[in-house]
């Protein structure tokens, strides 16, 4: 596993971020820096505030307080600059069921103003990478959940984002696709792309991520490499699951006030 890139400029800088839904505090005073080229794993139980944080990073929710800077751009003040350099894959991504795979790629290319011939060429290569080329001209409604997930990831890579924000990417993927995706994330990080990954799968976080942040009830409970967390949890022999359970034991999902 790669060492944390301490001292590097943070590409993602979250400062005092809070988000309240009515009386429910979903994210509370979150402070987090993710340097360039890091694969950051964001872990937490259901309803802990992961998706809320990720949506705020992508400008799809407004924070109640705090600030998010993506490569220096404030998501509140300059959302277009942020969106040009980020790629976002939702946990339940939207797809037009009655479009074909390649038509969807062209739609996504159009959203980022990309050249059509480039989208055709590059899109086909991503589809090939994920074994989707053979079904590129078929309607998406016939795709399995995993195929849809791979198509969304392919389409988000088209504009070559510098920051890749992915919410639960491994859900529904077969082992081969999961492996492809892991290799992809590693390749992206090697080239300097920052990957912000939310996952429930502790094994993925353990083997893939440079650093892990554990969020629970809207608060960041732990932050560091898996070794750091192991030390923090005082269970040096334990795996991430033991650490996770120890750090989040006996907790509620959200903090209603």
């Amino acid at each position: 596993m790669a060492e944390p890139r301490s001292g590097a400029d943070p590409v993602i800088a979250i400062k005092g971020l809070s988000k309240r839904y009515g009386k429910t505090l979903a994210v509370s005073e979150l402070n987090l820096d993710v340097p360039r080229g890091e694969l950051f794993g964001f872990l937490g139980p259901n309803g802990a505030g992961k998706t809320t944080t990720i949506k705020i990073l992508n400008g799809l929710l407004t924070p109640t307080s705090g600030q998010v800077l993506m490569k220096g751009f404030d998501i509140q003040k300059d959302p277009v600059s942020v969106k040009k350099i980020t790629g976002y894959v939702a946990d339940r991504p939207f797809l037009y069921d009655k479009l074909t795979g390649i038509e969807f790629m062209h739609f996504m290319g159009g959203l980022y103003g990309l050249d059509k011939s480039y989208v055709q060429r590059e899109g086909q290569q991503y589809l090939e990478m994920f074994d989707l080329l053979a079904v590129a001209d078929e309607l998406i409604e016939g795709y399995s959940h995993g195929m849809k997930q791979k198509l969304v990831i392919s389409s988000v890579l088209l504009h070559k984002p510098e920051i890749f924000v992915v919410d639960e990417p491994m859900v529904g993927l077969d082992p081969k696709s999961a492996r492809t995706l892991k290799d992809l994330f590693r390749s992206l990080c090697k080239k300097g792309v920052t990957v912000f990954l939310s996952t429930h799968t502790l094994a993925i976080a353990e083997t893939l991520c440079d650093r892990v942040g554990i969020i629970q009830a809207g608060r960041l409970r732990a932050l560091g490499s898996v070794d750091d967390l192991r030390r923090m949890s005082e269970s040096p022999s334990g795996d991430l699951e033991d650490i996770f359970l120890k750090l989040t034991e006996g907790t509620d999902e959200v903090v209603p006030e």
Partner: protein
Amino acid sequence: MLARRAGPAVAGGLWYLCQPMSEREDLPPQGRPQGALMLLRPKLQIARNFVLSQDWKSVVLFAAIALAVAFCLYYGAFRLLTRIDGVTIIGPLLKRYLLSMTLFSLLLMLVFSNVIASLSTFYGSDELDVIFASPVAYWKVFIAKYVETTFISSWMVFSMLLTLSLAYGRTYQSPGYFYLVCWVPLVPYCMFSASAGICISLLLARVLPVHQTRNMLRFLGAIAIGLLVLFLRMLRPEQLMRPEKFKSFTNFLLSLHNPRIEYFPSAWTANALLEAMGLDISRVWVDSLKLFGGALVTFLFTWWLASKVHFEGWLKFQESGERGRKGGLQSLGIIERLLARLPVESRALVEKDIKVFVRSPVLWTQFLLMLVIVAIYIYNVYLLPLSELGYIHPLFPDLLCFLNIGFVAFIIVACALRFGYPAVSMEGTVFYRIHASPLALERYLRIKFWMNFVPLLAIALVLVVVSNGLLGVRSAIFWLSLADAVIVTLAVSAMAIGFGSYYRNFKAENFAQIPSGFGGMVFMVACMAFVVVFLCLQAYPMYVYFYVFGPFLIWRAGALQTAALIGSLVLSVALGVFLWIWPLKKSAQILRYLEETGG
């Protein structure tokens, strides 16, 4: 294809994955700037893919039905306008009044329709997640959503007004160019209502959580439409056809003139259309300027307003999820106690469906509309000059009672389309749980059938009993029409479940979408065909009863006539019973087959 250069499973051609970020010199090549069409393209592609994925026979049938409906509308309007033309002196005035009133009434309905549609397109659409996560300029989003909203809300009214305009053009013997440009004034007309509707929803979403707004508006819309229809009925427009009731010709003409309507875009549209038909309308240029200029100004205002409040409102919508929201009905009270007598599986299904119904304003709205239609129907029967009809022929009320069965059947079909036809589709993706449960599909469909049959029968019986009472019909015909109502409701309810199973749509975003699809149209046509055949089979016995022997001398009929009379009645009943049993049996087979084949 480029060579593989990166990690084991990563295709090498993608330099993005291979070049260090620091060495990246060229960003992805940008294409030609694209307008809002880029956001509308998926919708067009979806429509094209849908048509291409259909069997060509279905496409032809659908097109033929659409053309037939348009032609019937055109022909009916033409005949009506020709009749109005025949009214001495005031015919042309009546025609203009009718056009103006039609455009005015539809404008109000379109505004409501646009409010509801824009809440879905501007706030509830899933694609907005993808679009707002991208750097696409807002003006493109606005124009795409504006066009989408206008199309969804207005296409049906636009088509209807187009056929009406063509009928008007023919009665006025308009010049040839009219048929090329008659659609032009309808575009700003639709834009006015779209702008008004979108502005209302933008402002409402600004101050209210969107879910509540949508639900509230559905209720308000239904009530408003109902009140509008009742208001129009209370005006008794049929009196306009009896100018003798007015004290003087001047009073009659004054009653046609409503100065307040002239301030609305509908009046400008009517004037622009009449001018295009070759009629000399004073101030037409002023009205045309108001129409086109006003549409542009309201469009620009809506754009400005949307750029200020839409995105923030959408963000608010993201937060106005259903978390913590309690169901509107925790207990069914007396209904629950009544249901306790049912077997447990039936009770589970019935309880679930009642709760879904009670908690879904979209269903309530439609139910309310149906009640309004029933009330209007009874009111129309009440308005009939029954005493005068009795003088024409003593059996005239009895004959009306027979024809009444056809009208009641039409209302039952309309209700079945709204509530019975979507019954299976409304299960959504949960249907597989039902299919996987020990509950046999046949039994499941029977439960669905009875759940729809009981309320439909109640409506049918109320309609028949009240209208027969008002008509003062004889007991034999009274009982026959009651029996017919039961048979027709049995058949139509079963056909609704049958067609609804065959054309099931488990992915519909809301219940209102389900009946408006291709299957809904096929169901309507099939039901109407059944009703026509059913009534034709009973026409002969009715003919014999009324005109050959009269109600008191029917026993004089010969053996052949009696056999034909009884045969016709038996055939009509057999047809109804067949269409009650067969669709239910067939739909279980169809559902099982489709589930097994993934069709």
